[in-house]
């Protein structure tokens, strides 16, 4: 018996496949049967994000009125040159505001983000942000330059309260008043958090933790947001809400988002640009629309 996430492997090795989703068997049969099951596709790729914005109210990027627009009217430019990262990657120049990095387990997506934010040291190449090389800049300084990274597993400090977690996000800022404001805005944006201010991080649900991690990153008023698997372990509806919010944040402001996702469909529903990685390399970078709509392409690069 094999418990696996990686579909390539599963398809090549197994005769019988059973797919579980939240503890329920949603499909069983030969690999072919399973692959064609729409429920499986949804579980794996995620449901389509609803087209309309959340009805309650317009999501607002905290402080977007005050934010200085980037001179080019866009977010900062991110360059990845060949050789960057552990195995060397193809050149990749995202030119839009939202980039989804896609790929199977072990493709190097998380490594890419960790290299960008300096948690890992690149073996070669450069990491340019706003034209400046980020190599050699200490991780804790990057947030001052406008780069926020929400790590995989959400990174909520479980021992601290919601309020302390949020405060932590703005501690580095000299403008205490604005940090305070940003914090209030996050509470407005994520109402569940406001209700649980005094609760410790470990008392929150998965969705609340994701909100908290995202909100905490926003308190820093970043220009580039690196998001690692925000949908991991979340109910599809919560994922949808978060994706919608991301889209709004980018639209309403010059925030550039680099999103790492396994949940391909929801990621592509948000992204302008899709970047596919495999075995540590960027194998394709193309507009998200193309990846989303072209089944052959998706099939070829993402295994479905």
């Amino acid at each position: 018996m094999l418990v696996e996430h990686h579909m390539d492997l599963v398809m090549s090795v197994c005769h019988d496949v059973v797919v579980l989703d939240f503890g329920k068997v949603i499909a069983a049969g030969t690999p072919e049967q399973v692959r064609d099951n729409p429920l499986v596709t949804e579980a794996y790729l995620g449901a389509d994000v609803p087209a309309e914005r959340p009805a309650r109210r317009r999501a607002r990027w905290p402080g977007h009125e005050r934010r200085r627009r980037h001179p080019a009217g866009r977010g900062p430019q991110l360059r990845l040159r060949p050789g960057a990262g552990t195995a060397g990657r193809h050149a990749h120049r995202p030119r839009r505001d939202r980039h989804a990095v896609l790929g199977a387990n072990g493709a190097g997506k998380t490594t890419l983000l960790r290299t960008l934010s300096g948690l890992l040291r690149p073996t070669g190449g450069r990491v340019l942000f706003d034209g400046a090389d980020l190599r050699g800049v200490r991780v804790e300084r990057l947030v001052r330059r406008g780069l926020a990274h929400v790590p995989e597993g959400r990174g909520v400090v479980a021992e601290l309260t919601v309020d302390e977690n949020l405060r932590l996000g703005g501690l580095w800022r000299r403008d205490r008043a604005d940090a305070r404001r940003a914090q209030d805005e996050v509470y407005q944006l994520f109402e569940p958090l406001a209700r649980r201010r005094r609760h410790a991080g470990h008392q929150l649900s998965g969705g609340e933790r994701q909100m908290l991690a995202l909100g905490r990153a926003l308190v820093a008023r970043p220009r580039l947001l690196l998001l690692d698997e925000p949908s991991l372990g979340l109910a599809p509806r919560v994922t949808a809400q978060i994706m919608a919010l991301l889209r709004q944040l980018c639209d309403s402001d010059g925030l550039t988002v680099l999103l790492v996702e396994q949940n391909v469909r929801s990621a592509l529903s948000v992204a302008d640009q899709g970047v596919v990685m495999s075995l540590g390399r960027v194998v394709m970078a193309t507009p998200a629309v193309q990846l989303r709509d072209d089944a052959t392409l998706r099939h070829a690069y993402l295994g479905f």
Partner: protein
Amino acid sequence: MTATQPPDVSTVAPRPATPSPLRRLWPGPPGTAGARGSTLLRHLILAVLAGTAVVLVTNQLAPYQNLQVARVCAFLCVTAGYTVLVGLNGQLSLGHGALMATGAYTVALVQQGFEEGAVQGRWILPLSLLLAVGVTAAAGLVIGLAAARLRGPYLAGVTLAVATLVPAITTIFTDVFNGEQGLRFPMETPPAFLGAYFQPERWLAWVALLAALLTMLLMANLVRSRFGRSLRAVRDDEVAARLAGIHVARNQVLAFVVSAACAGLGGGVYAVLTATVAPGKFALDLSLFLLMAIVIGGLGSLAGAIWGAVLLVALQDLPSLITETFTLPSGLAQRLEGNLALAVFGLILIVAMLVAPGGLQGAARTLTARLRPDRRAARR
């Protein structure tokens, strides 16, 4: 690198019922029973060779050097078992000095009992050592049972308390243990057939050597046995070990008992070497020095245990060596005496940990690997 192609499922044919491929992935030579037999044999040959070599060497040594050989062997009994516990099973005990004390006091009390009863015989020594192993193993069981629920610094804390409590017990039950002054029993003398002028220290070295070889032999086989593998499994991942069918708590308790038994034997031999025991010999520093010895030797490695045992003995001679080597003005000399050696030792510890955290054995391994051209080529 090209894009990953979707798999062609049709080519995957049903496989015939062959033995699980996992079987082949499992490391180890084919034919397990035969392999184990040969391991035992290999270790046995190695032990006999090593023993013969050391015996030959002891014949050439002066009394004091033989005593040092004996001391190394006594400490080796302890460090071998200790390194298995800390290095392979991942349980940090700071109480092994106290376990040595248990063995040592058992030997002393047994021998004193026979002395008072005017019983003599060459069997008293092996019997008292056997009892020392038994009693210490029982003490190890008690501590191990408590320790099986504790991890990391908590275990260290409890065993540290043991290390300070056991010497204190001797001052509380003064009638039995004679407080700080400890117990004395008759010196072990060479058997008559070796001749009246046989060097007593050489005989002591042989006794200690036998104990050390026995311990090393048992430990070497244990490390490569099923039990040894489960020790490592528990250290690396308790949950995985549990899933693999290992009874984690039992495994840990057993590791503690085995290691305690070794400490008991070592402590017993150590007591025999001087024919005395006293709580001051098994104070907290001994436990800490034992730990340093196995860590500097290289945790979890039996060869490292030898390094550690040698280090422990060398350490005792360091102070006099340093003060003899340098002649200093008397005022300064008084302050340097003793202190300088400790300072040097502390510095060595720190530097060793920073430069060679794998211990001496790790450093030796790296060095030999570097010196061997074939390995180097293979690495490129």
